[in-house]
């Protein structure tokens, strides 16, 4: 079956290949939709034990770690808008990742934020966050950044200033640790000034990472804290106004007219603050900025 048979087959292949590949791509797209709700994460976590997986990966730990890290990021990206209770799988994913590669510091940092953060943004499990970062510190004792992240969880999510201060202190003793840690140790021990302290923490997080998601989260927190800070100041000015004029300002314009403010203050999104009938400053209703709600700030 030479020339004619062969030519016919080659032509058949040339014609069939693109058709089949297009059909395959279409099928694949449909299959992908299917398996998104197909507990795909479950199938990867069949071997939940990081140690077992480490043995199974036959030495290609780092590669496997990268793969799991990618999945964690992907998974997290897919889940955070879906509010699935399966957010609980973030911890196992990060646990496996860090078992496979204990030096993947970004994984610990990621977990510190998103395991602790309440739903819908995170898993709402600061205890798991603490556990993960402690694991990271054990494997990377000279990584001062992890101390900072651990202290952040204590301070921000668990409202545990003594542990936060102790952690900052321990971190400040690491060679080459910046002064920031020592300063923070002092700040979190004080009461008052929580907003500034929190702003410092989140700014440090923002500048210390290249991970886009973490930066995004830090930005939002900083915006919210800035707004809370602005509200504090505006509330004081509002009280001043009340003392002078016997009523609360209706808007920032009143404060400008009374020369208490040089101009109309805007929130980090550029929208002007509004005042309630009780004289308390509030974010503009149409502002996308969200003020975080840890207990320590509630007294603002």
């Amino acid at each position, binding site marked *: 079956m*030479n020339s004619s*048979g062969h030519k016919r087959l080659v032509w058949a292949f040339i014609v069939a290949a693109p058709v089949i590949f297009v059909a395959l791509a279409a099928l*694949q797209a449909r*299959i992908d939709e299917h*398996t998104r709700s197909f507990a795909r994460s479950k*199938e*990867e*976590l*069949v071997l939940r034990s990081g140690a077992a997986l480490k043995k199974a990966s036959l030495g290609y730990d780092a590669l496997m770690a990268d793969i799991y890290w*990618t999945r964690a990021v992907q998974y997290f990206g897919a889940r955070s808008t879906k509010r699935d209770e399966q957010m609980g799988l973030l911890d196992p994913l990060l646990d496996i990742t860090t078992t496979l590669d204990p030096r993947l510091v970004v994984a610990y940092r990621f977990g510190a934020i998103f395991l602790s953060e309440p739903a819908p943004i995170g898993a709402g499990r600061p205890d798991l966050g603490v556990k993960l970062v402690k694991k990271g510190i054990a494997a990377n004792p000279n990584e001062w950044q992890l101390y900072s992240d651990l202290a952040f969880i204590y301070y921000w999510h668990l409202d545990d200033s003594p542990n936060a201060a102790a952690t900052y202190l321990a971190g400040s003793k690491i060679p080459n640790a910046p002064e920031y840690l020592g300063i923070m140790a002092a700040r979190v021990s004080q009461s008052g000034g929580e907003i500034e302290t929190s702003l410092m923490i989140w700014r440090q997080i923002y500048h210390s990472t290249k991970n886009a998601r973490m930066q995004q989260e830090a930005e939002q927190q900083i915006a919210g804290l800035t707004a809370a800070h602005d509200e504090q100041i505006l509330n004081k000015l509002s009280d001043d106004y009340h003392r002078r004029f016997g009523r609360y300002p209706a808007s920032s314009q009143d404060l400008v007219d009374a020369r208490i403010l040089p101009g109309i203050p805007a929130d980090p999104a550029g929208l002007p603050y509004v005042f309630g009938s009780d004289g308390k400053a509030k974010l503009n209703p149409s502002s996308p900025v969200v003020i975080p709600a840890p207990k320590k700030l509630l007294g603002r």
Partner: protein
Amino acid sequence: MSTTAVAASSMAPAPPRAVSTIVAVNTFREAVRDRVLYNLIFFALVMIGAAILVGQISIGIERLVIVNLGLSAISIFGLIMAIFIGVGLVYKEIERRTLYTLLAKPVHRWEFLVGKYAGLLLTLVVNTAFMMLGLAAALWYVAGTFQRSDVTILVAVYFILLELALVTALGLFFSCFSSPMLSTLFTLGIYVTGIFCAEIKAFGELSKNPAMEAVTKVIYYLVPNFHNFNAIAAAAYGDPISLTLVWQNTAYAALYVTLILLAAAAVFSNRNLK
């Protein structure tokens, strides 16, 4: 001896389907006689060991372990068989020259290829069926009962077979022109790529580099996506699998296998045998 000089031209031609079947049955017979099916003994030992061990420990997840282990073993054993026999399907016949007398008969080369493929596939199906029985037995031993959700196990096994069908086709294709060692490398390479192609695509997207994104996307849609066929965890947890997905995966495998066999036929039809 009678003169039967005219008998040859008056014979009814054997229909083409039959030729592939003849070759397929013989290929199956070869696998059996090569004691390939003895791997079932190892599988049985593994399952028995696991069942006993898990039964002793009684940690509440016996079903999970047996199903995970059993399906993984079925997949691995099947893969090994598909690859190692697959890459020799055509190569061996050329090397040993058994192909010479075969092609001197009224056999198209493509019929030969289809027959070899079908024969190995048949071997794999039989092998897998026995393994599934072993798995069922082990499951019965540890769990004492079957649940309705165990149907997913059947589906998972079916998906494994689809996966094996694809791997076998790849092995056969390479066998048409390449030595067993190279063919194994190529086939394994494509298989591993196919398992991780979703990650590769994700890497490409994360890189924010449009060229990388495009390349990884092309790879994703070009390479057979073997991860589609992995339903082991679903079987372990008893998640139901929709019929639509079963059809989709079947269609995917069928289309891809057809393409590979077509390519193999095209390549082989022109090959000068040593």
